[in-house]
């Protein structure tokens, strides 16, 4: 057991070492370090939310939904533009309706005709959906930068100034975002574990044919799953939009969520959450502490290693533990 797992253990040890290295070597004051970690956790929450959308759809329909990022952008744009003429919560409710309609359309027009195609064809189809949604969203809602104002004060709050010198700056908004994300995940967990629909969803995720043969309507399940993923995208989009403004670059978050699902495992909801947090913290720490070292050593034109750090981490994981941290064992291995 231990023998087989030593590469994983080594990798985790490496991760932990990297995590505490800046503190242990005294490269940074403790307060600053905690701030960086918190910033990473906040980014990680958003990655988790996007990754959650991936995992939900992959579990239930075996589709690798590249369009999750485009859905986040589309949802955020809808909320931002509708919130200009109505209170934001009403806009959010309307946006939920839009995302459900979108899920229904995708199921009808894209998934149903492609039933039984290979995974790559479905992946390509979601790429098509990505292009379509990016274009459609910006045609309908415009392509400037929009704000979402949730009515939360933006000024940072100083906490723990007794413990660390200078204290730690925390955005109240970030805090609300983290709580909202946690509530969403808890709600989803309840929905999956306790409701009949949730049970049907899990049955479909487990075995399509068996689920269908006991009378679970696959098509309706898919609509529900895509709707849930749409709502998750909406929450991610609103949080992200409130923090940084709604713009096209949100769509690219999806690309950051891919290493998260690799790390956590394609089929694991807790994996998506933990993976997101690990990647969020890891890449912030790497950017802040490893970046300058690399720049100095190789005479680079600036850091920016957070662009690929997550991917390299995921690649390492793929080599030693292809199913991810929490994924199911039986993946397509060669």
């Amino acid at each position, binding site marked *: 057991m231990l023998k087989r797992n030593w590469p994983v253990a080594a990798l985790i040890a490496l991760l932990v070492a990297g995590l505490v290295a800046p503190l242990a070597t005294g490269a940074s004051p403790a307060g600053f370090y905690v701030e960086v970690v918190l910033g990473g956790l906040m980014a990680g929450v958003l990655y988790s939310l996007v990754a959650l959308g991936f995992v939900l759809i992959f579990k239930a329909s075996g589709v690798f939904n590249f369009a999750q990022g485009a859905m986040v952008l589309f949802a955020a744009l809808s909320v931002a533009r509708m919130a200009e003429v109505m209170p934001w919560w009403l806009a959010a409710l309307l946006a939920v309706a839009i995302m459900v309609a979108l899920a229904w359309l995708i199921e009808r027009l894209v998934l149903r005709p492609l039933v039984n195609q290979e*995974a*790559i064809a479905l992946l390509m*189809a979601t790429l098509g959906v990505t292009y379509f949604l990016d*274009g459609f969203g910006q*045609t309908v809602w415009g*392509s400037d930068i929009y704000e979402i104002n949730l009515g939360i004060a933006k000024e940072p709050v100083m906490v723990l100034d007794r413990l660390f010198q200078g204290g730690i700056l925390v955005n109240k908004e970030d805090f609300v975002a983290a709580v909202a994300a946690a509530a969403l995940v808890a709600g989803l967990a309840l929905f999956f574990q306790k409701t009949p629909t949730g049970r049907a969803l899990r049955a479909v995720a487990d075995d399509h044919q068996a689920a269908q043969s006991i009378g679970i309507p696959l098509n309706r399940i898919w609509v529900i799953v895509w709707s849930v993923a749409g709502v998750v995208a909406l929450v991610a989009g609103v949080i992200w939009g409130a923090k940084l403004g709604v713009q096209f670059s949100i769509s690219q978050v999806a*690309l950051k969520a*891919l290493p998260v699902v690799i790390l956590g495992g394609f089929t694991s909801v807790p994996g998506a959450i933990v993976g997101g947090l690990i990647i969020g913290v890891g890449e912030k720490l790497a950017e802040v502490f490893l970046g300058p070292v690399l720049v100095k050593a190789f005479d680079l034109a600036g850091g920016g290693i957070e662009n690929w750090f997550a*991917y390299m981490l995921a690649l390492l994981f793929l080599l030693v533990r292809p199913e991810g941290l929490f994924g199911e064992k039986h993946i397509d291995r060669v």
Partner: protein
Amino acid sequence: MFYRENGQFKTTYAADQQMLPIRQDRLFMLALVVLAFAVVPFIASDYMIRAILIPFLILALAALGLNLLTGYCGQVSLGHGAFMAVGAYAAYNIAIRVPGLSFLVVLVLAGLAAALVGMIFGIPSLRIKGLYLAVATLAAQFFFDWVFARVKWFTNYAPSGSVSVPNIDLFGLVLNTPQRKYLFVLAIVALFALLAKNLVRARVGRSWMAIRDMDVAAEVIGIRPMAAKLSAFAVSSFYCGVAGALWGFIHLGSWEPLAFSITLSLNLLFMIIIGGLGSILGSFFGAAFIVVLPILLNQAPTWLGIPMSTSMISHLEFMIFGALIIFFLIAEPHGLARLWAIGKEKLRLWPFPH
């Protein structure tokens, strides 16, 4: 009526194994080659050559490379834009650091550099496949985007990070007119296409297809998966490296790191899906489709007389592009190459229905 193979008997093994067994196909291919080499350069406008034909040929070469890997060996890659970038930057660095080297040698070296990188990023394919592999190759994409943007050595310490290359001198003939560039690219692409066509008919290609169809069975009949997969990655990246070098030196002339972004990787994937997975001809169809479609979509509002802002056009372009991809996947999952094959089947019987 015109396309019928009655009376064409094969009496030797060589005739049985030839690339185009039907006489009409051979004549058609001959006509196409003559047309491309001898007629097109004289009748096509400079704009036509620069904006459509050259990008089409180079992208067809890159798509061909990706098709060897994805279509023939079954390994998905989202990182081939990065391998093109490796080819382009390798060619650039070799060309400025070793003056006087023939561009043909530079091209081959650039291809080899890309092949090496491709093999390194192909190593995960020994353990994983499918979507996991797609993500692993994405790592190559993001890593090389960063490398070429940040490591100053690769851009020869250019302050803006963009590089520009001089005209290519080929044995005293300077490639400075669109016609000359076109002919050069055409010759290279034709050569590589012929090579690919033969490669997939040969032992290597057959071992790739065996791996694609069922890796366990392939292993049982004595194909080494490691050799097959890594050779597929190497050859495929070699093609993309050469295409990248051509793209940089001949099509762009000067380029920024973003010239080889993930959009390019995705476009290559679209090309082989729309053109047809596992088809040499399909790579050309797909490339033509992806090159021509945006130009058409851009021009369409002007032709139709509908006034539209440029941002509106680009958004609509995205939408139509996405919708068309889905449409193609649903209507013809095997791509344009399959449509072509169906057309030929129909032509055999024409004008009779049965």
